[in-house]
């Protein structure tokens, strides 16, 4: 079936089996392979993309459910030579090793910082009615939907903290 998608500001008309997940549409049909498949079941976060500005697992949604939606993938955040602040910070702080979970981490962090700005509480926020402060514990909790087996978590936290504090502008 046909689905119209806006991906990184570009219009795509996708013709695919309704069973196609948004993740597989990106990887198999549109050849946007920056979005990774790590588990295909919402258990690792490698497939994180932004849909209408919000982070989701693209493996657990069908492409056809997103007709008309605006999708941002890692390719839309920055390219070598013109990296986004978070992308630059991940390089500087070595917030990755094998690199496979990295696009998902960066997409996730991009939206996560907006969630904090909007005052969303997390599991570690002391009072859910307070404006959350972006501590290391807050970053770690909010990024826990993105697994990294190379286990660069401390570096990921440092990279995100750096950008939140105004680095890499």
């Amino acid at each position: 079936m046909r689905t119209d998608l806006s991906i990184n500001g570009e219009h795509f008309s996708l013709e695919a089996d309704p069973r196609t997940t948004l993740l597989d549409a990106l990887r198999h049909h549109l050849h946007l392979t920056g979005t990774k498949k790590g588990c295909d079941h919402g258990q690792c976060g490698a497939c994180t993309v932004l849909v209408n500005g919000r982070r989701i697992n693209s493996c657990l949604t069908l492409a056809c459910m997103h007709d008309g939606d605006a999708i941002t993938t890692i390719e839309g955040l920055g390219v070598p030579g013109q990296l986004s602040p978070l992308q630059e910070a991940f390089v500087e702080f070595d917030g990755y090793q094998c690199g496979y979970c990295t696009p998902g981490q960066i997409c996730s962090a991009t939206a996560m910082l907006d969630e904090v700005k909007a005052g969303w509480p997390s599991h570690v926020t002391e009072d859910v009615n307070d404006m959350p402060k972006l501590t290391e514990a807050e970053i770690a909790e909010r990024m826990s939907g993105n697994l990294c087996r190379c286990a660069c978590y401390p570096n990921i936290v440092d990279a995100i903290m750096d950008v939140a504090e105004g680095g890499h502008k």
Partner: protein
Amino acid sequence: MNIRFKFDEPDTRHRLDQMSQDIIGKAFDRPDGPMKVSGQATYAAEWEVDRLAHGVLVRAPVARGRLKSLGIEAVSAMDGVIAVLTGERFLRVPAQGTENTAPHQGASDIYYHGQPVALVVAETFEAARHAAHHLALEIETSGPAPVDPEASDTVREETDRSSQGDLDRAMAEAAHTVDVTYRTPGHNSAAMEPHAAIAQWDGDELTLRGAYQMLKFNRNELADSLGIPAEKVRILAPYVGGGFGSKLGISHEGVAAALAAREIGRPVSVVLSRQQVFETTIRRSESRQRIRLAAGEDGRLTGIGHEYLVSNLPEEDFAEPVAQATPFLYAGEHREVVEELARVHRLLAGSVRAPGEAIGVTVLENAMDELAEKVGLDPVELRLRNIPDVDPSSGKPYSSNRLADCLVHGAERFGWDNRNKEPGSERHGEWLIGQGMASAVRVNMLAPAEARVRLSPEGDVTIETDMTDIGTGTYAILTQIASEMLGIVPDRIETRLGDTDFPPGPGSGGSWGAASTGTAVFIACEEIRRRIAKRVAVAETDLTLVDGHAITDNRKIPLPEILAGVAIDVVGELEPGKAQKARRQATYGAYFAEVAVNAVTGETRVRRMLGVFSAGRILNAKTARSQCLGGMTWGIGMALTEALVHDARDGHLINHDLAEYHIPVNADVPQIEVDLLDERDDWANPLQAKGIGELGICGAAASVVNAIYNATGVRVRDYPATLDKVLAGLP
């Protein structure tokens, strides 16, 4: 030309220290970083290939049996299905690291639950996945199929035994003894990129884009599995999404994709599902370990015994070398190591990050903690008293051993003296606080390696080797070695990896990649330096190369001027020699951890963790540190959450995904600190560097579990220390 170098004598020249580019050892950003953070790096399944068909493997639903029929009729009419394949060339199990020939093959003889028995190929992934669920497999079960290593009817064989002195007597006569049995569960590497391959034939020549760690061996394994000459096979793996042992050998997806692509005359992609990665690649064997320690009044060891039971499938050689570091870590003249192997129908046991030490040193370090308490000695002091002058088992000197420095420096940095000294006595609200420590040790190895270094007439450098970068930092460190040796800025160096058309390296495994391939690059660069030196008529040792210039007799000459239009192209070949055997070579370290254990629920949180490591020359402070962070995080996982669980009835893996097999998440891991004690190990290789990819896990879990004891007074001897086990001992 090729320059061959055999490493027989220690290299005391410390050449890298004499160079002028000042990049070796620095926290140099990975050159592959911008590609990785922008999603441009191409992993195995991501190459754009025309007419690509998708294959999905079909699992056996029993632990032991014979496949009688596939029941293809159920799926052959399904939309998009192209073919269903099975056969005796399908792999039963993946190859072990450096196996170099085909592993056991045959789809019809089922050895474990989850073994791939067929491949469904279809026009789309969606069609293949659906059809793979619906083959009407006809399987004749055959028994018995023991799945529990410790069950009474399981076959167990003694596969190794070594002893010196009389440990029984030492135990009987010792002032203090420890005789404890610990258990560790199976582990899965769980690299974030599932195993994947795209196979494409051009006539009788195969190109496989795969996710593998050791291409030189993988090429031979793949060719042998298919029954074709290795020269007909090319494997490409420039980016690999983690391996940790699971991608050492050729695996199901590579062989199945190649067979299918040949059969249907189209390129075929096969990607394992996450569940298949758990069920059919490899596991670290579970272990039962009995440690005996005999010590005098002062805590000095007189004897060490390490007996262990691990498992593997029938007919498989690999046994987790649990006691690999036990013979040389601590003193004691009476020693015994016994290995027993149980034959069970669980998936293949093989190398998972630091096979041997990861679980063996961990348990030894738990036992040392128990001994420290019995002797009434600071656990750090107990270890310091037992560091031998020479390898107590072989009598060989150590190439280097800075364990004492790691312990002393770590204790100071961590504030070990301020620790809680009475188990269970420090409480903040609901949380019991405790500290623990452990030593780290991992054997160091060197392997044959080749690399090409080409200096263009313009002064640009290209490095080529089939070595892989699985996240380890190969791109960075090879670039740095060439940059330092040749005085070329890294921007003008291109490091090309992961292609069997390039000179062969040993691959990524056993922490030997950087030292081995790095030495091959070093050898080639030394030769290039000699050529340049000759052209400017100075001795190579007097040649200064920096920022693309040669400096000699106060003259600064741009390299293009010296090269005069001619490139220099050298393949460096490393052959390990006598130096490797002449000394006991290992890397060392110490871990310090602080945990908070919830007095209500038994949940453990690691609050602080420090690792101090010594692994020869550190080639890149940034990537080396990250490797250690990774290893220590695996230690947290091993200590608290990770365990493969097999159903006792049919052996099937119960927690075969990332929701149920709990690797640590970001919130489980504190801002771990790592200190690297730089040193030069002249016996290791001409770089004086040693492997660091595995050291961070070799005992890390013990520091956490020892800290849990310190916090609560509860000794958990059955890994992982999940809350139920801690809770059982809490008031």
